């Protein structure tokens, strides 16, 4: 055995290299080693860091004590052998490196993982590693120099920090998810704020958390959680000094770890924080473009180093809380708006509906729609809604309705009238619909709305009014013609104006009385009894009336014949008063009527009988207007048969009026139950 003294030194590897049988390796006897190899071995053995060499084309492995440690169980067998024989597992990764270095390159690897065997225990270490060429006197690369720096402690600290950061981030996300879940179900802004403060405060382990709103230059705390929490507190932003306010307004999260020693805080702010037992805080303002905004912060009663994750969390909570509050407010506004619309629509007696403009399906209908059409309303909600609706519109009007819908779908506003058969009872109703487009954001027709008014009653009233107005015109003008005629005849028969005045007044009064009966006839039908009594009462001689006997059933007579009949009765009564049974000469007047039925139909038979005990000369007037009315006008206008007999015994006048069925002119009809 060659007992060379070189390499010097007392280390294990120095000893092994000294005593190794190098002659049996490609390196040859240690005594023949070139200086470059010997120098490299010396430097290697002297290095406190793990180092190794691979020498020559065979890459014979040499290493120092520190490296022997890393090689573990492979040591000491690895010494003096070609590297890939000694460490076959390294071939794949190392061969390219070896090649690069042997062609003159230096290679550095950072944070590489190595497994070492230490006292029989496998251990993982982290190393930085550098490989570089070793050249001989001629400059040729003859070996590879490799050194390791064990960075395990550093790498593990870094990994731990990264792990912590990840865990914090995961925790933060888990917390934010819980927060979102908790806030989502709340509808009250105050409840949302209070929950956010409590959850964030508990999660951060803060002394206090608060949420506020920016009103102008002030912050108004709405909600707070924790020690000394005082919601509804108000403070001016300016109290925090210009530096912090600027950061605040720029939307940056403000982090104060120790308020007593933070140069950004002025004495006023410190005083205020001291009073509130705040030594550290994290706060952020979320400003809205429209002005105002929200403020959220976590505070600590003792100085605290806030982690990046905590700072991030404060911003996240602030954003989520503000979003939840705004969502709740918008939802509340929407609910109120919907409620307002609902109340309006439900109070309306008109049907209010909204259809989808494309499908025409009903999206909204006011309750009166359903109640107005009864149980059969469901048919409109099955299948094609418009088709169901059109089916109850009468066929003549369907095209008008569908045409209106088409026009509204193209953006027009349309009003249309149509008739429909109400499904619950088949009644025909007049409807007036105002239909209008409801536009989407882009101006397209998204829905169509309608207000549907039942005009049936209005239509009927208008028709009735039309008839009434025409009837009134007819009656008024006819009346004027009658007045004209009466004046002419009275004038012709009067010897002087005084006589004319007396007669014309009485006749116009009689006309006027029957007019008032006619105007009330809707409520009180005119009967023959009413006409007779009206004329007798008008005589104003009640005392005489014990000489009068009136009897007969109540028989209703039509308006169109009341006038001429009343005029005739007036003339009879006037004459009775002047010359007949009711004059100064005592007599009796019997007016009776009855309904006679014969082959030609029924007729009303009225008898006017005056009995006079004293004979009075037949007067001129009795050949006058009254007699003409009875003998000529009644037969002419009413198709009546009349008889007028005047003699010494008195007057016997009969008027037979054909009852209903004998022609429109003669309509005396409807016998009413007798009134006493």
């Amino acid at each position, binding site marked *: 055995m060659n007992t060379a003294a070189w390499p010097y030194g007392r280390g294990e590897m120095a000893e092994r290299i000294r005593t190794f049988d190098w002659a049996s390796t490609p390196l040859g006897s240690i005594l023949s080693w070139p200086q470059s190899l010997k120098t490299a071995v010396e430097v290697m053995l002297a290095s406190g860091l793990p180092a190794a060499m691979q020498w020559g084309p065979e890459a014979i492995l040499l290493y120092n004590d520190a490296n022997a440690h890393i090689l573990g169980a492979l040591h000491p067998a690895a010494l003096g052998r070609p590297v890939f024989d000694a460490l076959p597992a390294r071939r794949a990764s190392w061969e390219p490196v070896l090649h690069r270095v042997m062609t003159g390159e230096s290679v550095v690897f950072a944070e590489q993982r190595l497994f070492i065997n230490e006292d029989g225990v496998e251990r993982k270490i982290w190393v930085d590693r550098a490989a570089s060429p070793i050249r001989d006197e001629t400059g040729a690369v003859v070996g590879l120099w490799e050194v390791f720096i064990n960075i395990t402690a550093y790498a593990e600290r870094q990994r731990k920090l990264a792990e912590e950061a990840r865990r914090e981030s995961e925790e933060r996300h888990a917390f934010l998810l819980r927060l979102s879940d908790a806030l989502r179900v709340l509808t009250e802004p105050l409840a949302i704020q209070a929950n956010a403060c409590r959850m964030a405060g508990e999660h951060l382990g803060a002394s206090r958390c608060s949420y506020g709103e920016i009103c102008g230059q002030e912050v108004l705390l709405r909600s707070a959680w924790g020690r000394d929490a005082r919601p509804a507190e108000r403070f001016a932003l300016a109290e925090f000094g210009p530096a912090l306010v600027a950061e605040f307004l720029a939307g940056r999260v403000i982090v104060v770890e120790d308020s007593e020693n933070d140069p950004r805080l002025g004495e006023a702010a410190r005083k205020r924080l001291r009073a509130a037992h705040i030594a550290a805080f994290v706060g952020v303002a979320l400003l809205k473009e429209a002005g105002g905004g929200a403020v959220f912060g976590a505070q600590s009663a003792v100085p605290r180093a806030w982690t990046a994750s905590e700072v991030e969390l404060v911003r996240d909570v602030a954003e989520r809380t503000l979003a939840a509050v705004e969502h709740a407010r918008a939802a509340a506004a929407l609910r109120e708006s919907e409620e307002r619309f609902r109340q309006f629509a439900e109070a309306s007696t008109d049907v209010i509906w909204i259809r989808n403009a494309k499908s025409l399906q009903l999206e909204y209908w006011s309750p009166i729609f359903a109640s107005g059409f009864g149980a059969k309303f469901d048919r409109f909600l099955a299948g094609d809604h418009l088709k169901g609706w059109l089916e109850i519109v009468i066929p003549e009007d369907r095209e008008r309705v569908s045409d209106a819908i088409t026009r509204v779908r193209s953006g027009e506003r349309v009003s249309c009238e149509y008739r429909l058969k109400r499904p619950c009872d088949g009644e025909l109703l007049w409807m007036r619909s105002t239909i209008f487009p409801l536009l989407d954001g882009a101006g397209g027709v998204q829905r169509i709305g309608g207000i549907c008014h039942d005009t049936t009653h209005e239509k009927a009233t208008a028709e009735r009014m039309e008839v009434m107005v025409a009837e009134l015109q007819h009656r008024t003008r006819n009346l004027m*013609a*009658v*007045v004209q005629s009466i004046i002419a*005849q009275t004038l012709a028969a009067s010897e002087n104006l005084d006589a004319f005045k007396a007669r014309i007044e009485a006749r116009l009064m009689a006309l006027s009385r029957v007019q008032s009966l006619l105007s009330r006839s809707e409520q009180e039908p005119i009967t023959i009894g009413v006409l007779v009594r009206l004329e007798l009462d008008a005589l104003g001689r009640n005392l005489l009336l014990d000489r009068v006997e009136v009897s007969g059933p109540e028989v209703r007579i039509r308006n169109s014949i009341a006038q001429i009949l009343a005029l005739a009765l007036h003339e009879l009564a006037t004459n009775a008063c002047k010359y007949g049974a009711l004059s100064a000469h005592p007599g009796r007047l019997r007016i009776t009527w009855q309904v006679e039925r014969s082959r030609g139909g029924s007729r009303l038979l009225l008898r006017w009988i005056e009995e006079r005990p004293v004979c009075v000369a037949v007067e001129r007037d009795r050949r006058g207007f009254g007699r003409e009315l009875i003998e000529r006008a009644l037969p002419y206008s009413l*198709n009546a048969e009349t008889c007028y007999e005047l003699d010494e015994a008195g007057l016997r006048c009969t008027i037979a009026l054909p009852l209903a069925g004998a022609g429109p*002119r003669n309509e005396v009809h409807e016998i009413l139950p007798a009134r006493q």
Partner: protein
Amino acid sequence: MKSSPLANKRVLVVEDDYLVAMDIARALERAGAEVIGPAPGIEAALDALERTAPDGAILDINLGGEMAFPVADALMARGVPFIFATGYDAQVIPVRFTHVKRCEKPMASEQICAALFGAGVTPAGDQI
């Protein structure tokens, strides 16, 4: 009498109200016309139209509740000129009679004559 455009013309009066009918009849007679009727209803009017050939007619529209348009149709069919004497507004008159002159009640007798003359009753002489 010679100066009246209605002299010796036969004029049918259809009017349900006796007093008004008499007034019209008297006015026509004063104007020298021969009055046919007066007829109080559609039947009587159509009867009179059958029996005589009037030169003109005055027609009340509402005859005791019945509209006198069948008489108007008969008059038009025979080419007899006529006027409506009525209390109604123009809107109740069917379109086929819109050309017929309308006198609103009450009328002065001169009005009737003028309207009838305007309606086509030829004056019975050269003088107007």
